[in-house]
């Protein structure tokens, strides 16, 4: 019997992002070098929201970009070609602390591809990872630095993040098949 349950509502997402923003300032004493890079699709609106909150806290504009990782995936020949989203990194990543932002952390393969893709743009001083939901089941030695919510799941379940969609409240839902 398929069922869905709410993991985070709009307020919960907002609180999680605010906490992550504070954790980023705690971890990085000088935020002048911090840039946010969202991974399409889910990570991009998240990075934009996080960027706004973070800019408010540190009183300076934090640059936000987006990075499509699909050309760097390791499973390209095993499925239909993915849709490619625009990559926009209108700043130099060399020497910066790049915080990758994604909505759900699962196998870790997207993040591996993202680190690979980021290399094409330069050599950041540090790469950190912020995710809204960590659902477990890692297939690679990858761990998030900043997590909105740890949510144990079974591999067959799906985590759906709705953010900034017209006509829908921001929320995170767990679907059981």
């Amino acid at each position, binding site marked *: 019997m398929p069922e869905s349950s709410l993991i985070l509502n709009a307020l919960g997402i907002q609180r999680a992002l605010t906490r992550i923003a504070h954790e980023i300032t705690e971890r990085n004493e000088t935020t002048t070098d911090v840039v946010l890079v969202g991974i399409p699709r889910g990570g991009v609106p998240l990075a934009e929201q996080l960027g706004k909150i973070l800019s408010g806290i540190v009183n300076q504009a934090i640059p936000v970009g987006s990075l499509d990782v699909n*050309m*760097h995936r390791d499973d390209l020949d095993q*499925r*239909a*070609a993915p*849709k490619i989203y*625009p990559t926009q990194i209108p700043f130099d990543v060399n020497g910066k602390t790049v915080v990758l932002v994604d909505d759900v952390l699962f*196998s870790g393969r997207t993040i591996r591809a993202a680190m690979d893709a980021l290399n*094409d*743009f330069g050599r950041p001083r540090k790469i950190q990872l912020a995710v809204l939901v960590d659902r477990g089941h890692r297939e690679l030695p990858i761990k998030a630095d900043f997590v909105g919510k740890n949510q144990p799941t079974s591999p067959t379940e799906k985590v759906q993040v709705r953010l900034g969609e017209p006509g829908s409240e921001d929320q995170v839902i767990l679907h059981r098949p």
Partner: protein
Amino acid sequence: MSWNRKHLLDIESLSADEIITVLDTAKAFKAVGERAIKKVPALRGRTVVNLFVEPSTRTRISFELAQQRLSADIVNFTAEASSLKKGETLKDTAKNLEALNADFIVIRHSAAGAPHFLSRVLNAHVINAGDGAHEHPTQALLDAFTIRERTGKIAGLNVTILGDILFSRVARSNIWALTKLGAKVTLCGPSTLVPRTFEAMGCRVTHDVDEALREADIIHLLRIQHERQRKTMFPSIGEYTTLYGLTKARFAKVRPNALIMHPGPINRGVEIDNEVADCARSLILEQVTNGLAVRMAVMFLINGGKGPQEIAVV
């Protein structure tokens, strides 16, 4: 988003949606070409054979560079230096290449239908890089990409294709692509090279060049393909230029924002005047740049064409 094809054989069988998917994907690959590091690992470990049975320079170089930028391993094969000269059939040549575990075969052949034939006898992905006078799908895709990039749309535009239509695979692929995307296509040239039978493909045929150019938003010129003509289809090159060449005088009378395209190689002074070929409204070199991005996109999409699987929710 819809792409689950194993091969790219022609434009005729593609839907408008599939064409748009290629154009959208190519946009991302064009951005890759503008980065400091122009290479992505999408085709790493895949072997591509460029089987150019008919000579080609620009298409082969464009495909080869596209493959290199996707990190594929490449084997180039030309008819002059091969066992095709010793009497081996195309099927045997291709089977041999597949026995070496080639994943992709990019084929250019003087016989229409050669890529379709290979796609039936091989397991590898087949890409048509021009087959006889039939189709040249990647050229039509890059032309559509160039038009869309410059004008923001294709639907509703008046596109005039001028020149040797009869022997042109570029014209056929372009007619399919542009009409599917909603452009109004007019064909023009000497009546021997632009027969009325093309009206069946959904375009207008005229032999009055001034009328064909008057309302055109895009003027697509084609080269006279002497190599495909068994006998001369018009009295002389000089007469062709006089009657159908895009001369300075003729160009002065077209719409002020009309753009010029040409698949190359251009014959200056024959189908196009020097000044016109080099003016700011000529997209000829943009077509070359975009060709690279479009070919990267095609290979990327075909590589993943393993059926309409839902992309895993991560």
